[in-house]
């Protein structure tokens, strides 16, 4: 393959994009030629999905230039210049397979292709992808998830695109289907189609791509030829090439206390590998991974919700042992979960700060069955000082607080239940630096008092500075675990992308 001489299909120059105060893309440039598979690589929050959405023309850049030059061949009537396949399996479940393959190709009333041509094209591509004949008129809901995603891929390919964008599109495919798809992709590449490829599997990236663009913190920092790239060089590029030291104020690794929560043979999905792990008193365990690899599922499962099989056991110091089967039971045995989405899953927006604090512990404030506001206020004041919650009056609406102070109030809500196990789902997401440090201090203090804390974080930095031990999740199971000297940026990122994993046959 010699993409050097092929025509340029896509050229992005210095693209920037912000969402409110968040700068998702600072300066991204990308060039894709006909007949190449161009991979984009970066860890969470590096901006790759935003770049892909801009390339797929689903979002408009704030600044910068995006030029798409079609190949200029003779085109079928259903042709699209850019076709995208997403990680989510976007099928309309009420419709048939062939309807899903051709979804969106028609106008409001008219169809560019006769029915028979559509059926033929759909049957041909699905046969290549699934390796068997599918009943085109069967409801798509009857297919396996992998075959449904094959329908989405077929939907893109029947448009005969000049540029195919794959946004983690292969994660729902089973291995055979994926291999068949890659074979097909190689043929289309030889025909001159360009592909933008995002995958969370380093082996896929290295096996398929011709060039790789690495992103970090909203910038495209390098484009390397596949022949010059190894997993190690790519990880080094993603992490910035500095072998970082762990922050100075980090306490020495805690001596693990007794186990307080144990998971045995826990399966997060029907097909994922089982997980065995234990949380110990006095430790902060990070839950890391690329987005969507089951980190949240793990926390919820530890809280007694949503596991497919296996057990979670709460080990109390007093020899009491509880099997956790529901969040309600978890709460009763001293396991608290703080959800990720503050606005939707934590806050009661119409209520005041102190009411939001007290909802889990109303009983503590009652006298003769009636709530005593004085008692409630006194109780909250203790937490207010400890968490350094900055507020006007306790009775103000919770929405008057900054994100960081809202999160602190929510933490106070759960701390008031005096949990021994605290499960935190990205508690510092989108809050300011000062509030973050307050929360880190709080967590360290709680751990020192003997609480066991498991914390999901999408920020690498947090894993390196706050955690005693970090679990890296891949495909809904534990892929690796790091602590002490092995807890480095490069080890984490390598594990995110499955480097060191055996390549499946």
């Amino acid at each position, binding site marked *: 393959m010699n993409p050097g001489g092929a025509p340029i299909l896509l050229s992005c120059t210095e693209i920037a994009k912000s969402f409110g105060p968040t700068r998702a893309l600072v300066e991204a440039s990308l060039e894709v030629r006909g007949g190449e598979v161009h991979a984009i690589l970066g860890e969470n929050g590096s901006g790759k999905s935003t770049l892909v959405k801009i390339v797929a023309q*689903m979002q408009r850049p704030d600044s910068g230039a995006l030029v798409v030059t079609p190949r200029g061949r003779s085109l079928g009537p259903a042709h*699209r210049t850019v076709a*995208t396949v*997403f*990680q*989510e*399996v*976007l*099928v*309309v*479940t*009420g*419709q048939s397979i062939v*309807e899903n393959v051709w*979804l*969106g*190709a*028609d*106008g*409001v*009333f*008219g*169809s560019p292709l006769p029915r028979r041509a559509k059926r033929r094209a759909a049957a041909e591509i699905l046969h290549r992808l699934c390796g068997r004949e599918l009943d085109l008129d069967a*409801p798509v*809901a009857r297919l396996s*998830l992998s075959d*449904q995603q094959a329908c989405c891929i077929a*939907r893109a390919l029947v448009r005969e695109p000049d540029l195919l964008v794959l946004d983690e599109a292969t*994660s*729902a495919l089973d291995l055979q289907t994926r291999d068949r798809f890659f074979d097909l992709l190689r043929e289309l590449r030889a025909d001159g189609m360009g592909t933008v490829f995002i995958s969370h599997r380093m082996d896929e990236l290295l096996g398929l791509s011709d060039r790789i663009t690495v992103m970090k913190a909203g910038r495209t920092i390098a484009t390397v030829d596949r022949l010059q790239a190894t997993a190690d060089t790519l990880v080094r590029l993603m992490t910035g090439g500095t072998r970082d030291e762990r922050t100075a104020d980090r306490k020495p690794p805690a001596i693990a206390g007794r186990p307080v929560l144990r998971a045995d043979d826990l399966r997060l*999905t029907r097909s994922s590998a089982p997980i065995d792990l234990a949380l110990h008193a006095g430790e902060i365990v990070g839950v890391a991974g690329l987005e*969507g690899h089951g980190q949240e599922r793990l926390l919820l499962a530890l809280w007694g919700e949503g596991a497919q099989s296996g057990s979670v056991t709460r080990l109390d110091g007093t020899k009491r042992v509880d099997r956790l089967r529901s969040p309600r039971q978890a709460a009763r045995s001293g396991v608290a979960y703080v959800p990720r989405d503050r606005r939707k899953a934590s806050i009661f927006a119409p209520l005041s700060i102190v009411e939001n604090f007290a909802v889990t512990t109303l009983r503590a404030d009652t006298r003769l069955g009636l709530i005593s506001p004085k008692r409630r206020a006194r109780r909250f004041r203790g937490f207010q000082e400890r968490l350094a919650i900055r507020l006007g009056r306790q009775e103000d609406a919770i929405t008057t607080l900054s994100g960081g102070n809202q999160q602190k109030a929510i933490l106070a809500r759960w701390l008031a239940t005096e949990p021994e196990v605290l499960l935190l789902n990205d508690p510092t997401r989108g809050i300011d630096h000062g509030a973050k440090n307050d929360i880190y201090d709080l967590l360290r203090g709680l751990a020192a008092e003997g609480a066991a804390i498991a914390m999901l974080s999408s920020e690498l930095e947090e894993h390196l500075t706050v955690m005693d031990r970090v679990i890296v999740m891949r495909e809904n199971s534990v892929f690796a675990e790091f602590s002490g000297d092995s807890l480095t940026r490069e080890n984490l990122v390598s594990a995110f992308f499955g480097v060191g994993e055996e390549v499946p046959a």
Partner: protein
Amino acid sequence: MTGFRAALVRRPYLIAVVLAAILLAVNVVAMPSAAASYWPGLIANLAPLAFVAIASTPSVLGGGIDLSIGPQVVLSNIVIVMVLLPAGIDSPWAVIPIVLALGILIGTINGVLVALLRFPAMIATLCVMFVLIGIAQRLAPQPAGGSTPWIEFLTSRAGLFPIAALVIAVPFAVWLVLRRTSFVRNLLAAGGDPIAATSAGVPVSAVRLLSYTLGGLFASIGGLMLTSLLRSADASQASTLVLIGLAAVALGGTAFTGGRGGLLGSLAGALCIFLIQNLLTALSVPAVWINVIYGLLLVGSVVLSASLLSQKNVRQPV
């Protein structure tokens, strides 16, 4: 049962069809003597409710709802009786185009509010409903008579054949034509999974807008039938028709989450409600209980179809 369930997945209107058949049988048994006058007029009497149900269906299929269908039917009835006929406009070649155009206009206003301006469908069409009821009451403060022979012909019979059946067939003919185009497929996709539909390039806003226009068109034909049956203008029925029409849609197996169902189910649903109404009246059940029975029937059928379809409709997690 699994066979029925499989059939139900393909044809969600089956519950209503089976129920309507049972009710017809019960009607025959309960009112053997009524046959002479009752049966031939059945379809004509059913027509207004059938049109409300049919006109409510397209927007629901597209994932929306149109609460103003009942008032639209009533308004076109009132415009005919209180505006067109007194002004000397009584030729079918003038009245029908004017009424249909009015229906298309109101439907399109709903469509623009919901699909283009993105107001929540429930709120937007509720507002339109109140406006239409207001206009109707302004035009017809109290019931007033008025009709012409050709309008009365619409609910009469040619021999034993009810003309109303032909009029009810009109929206089905329109729908069948639309099914041959990509419109219905697009509408079901937009209602079934808007995210998937949008990402695949389905013109979601356009088909949703047109679903309200189509509802308006069908509602205006319903207004003609209501006029033919009442031979007068009456603004009082507007708000009850809204809810009974939507009940018929739900009974007909159309999912209120969008993407599943069709006109035939709504017709069968309307027939069920109509037959129950007749049956209960014939058995001299007090009117207040009739509403309670509608409610129970609706809950029962929704629960039944939801529990029969539940496994098929769950989206598998990625």
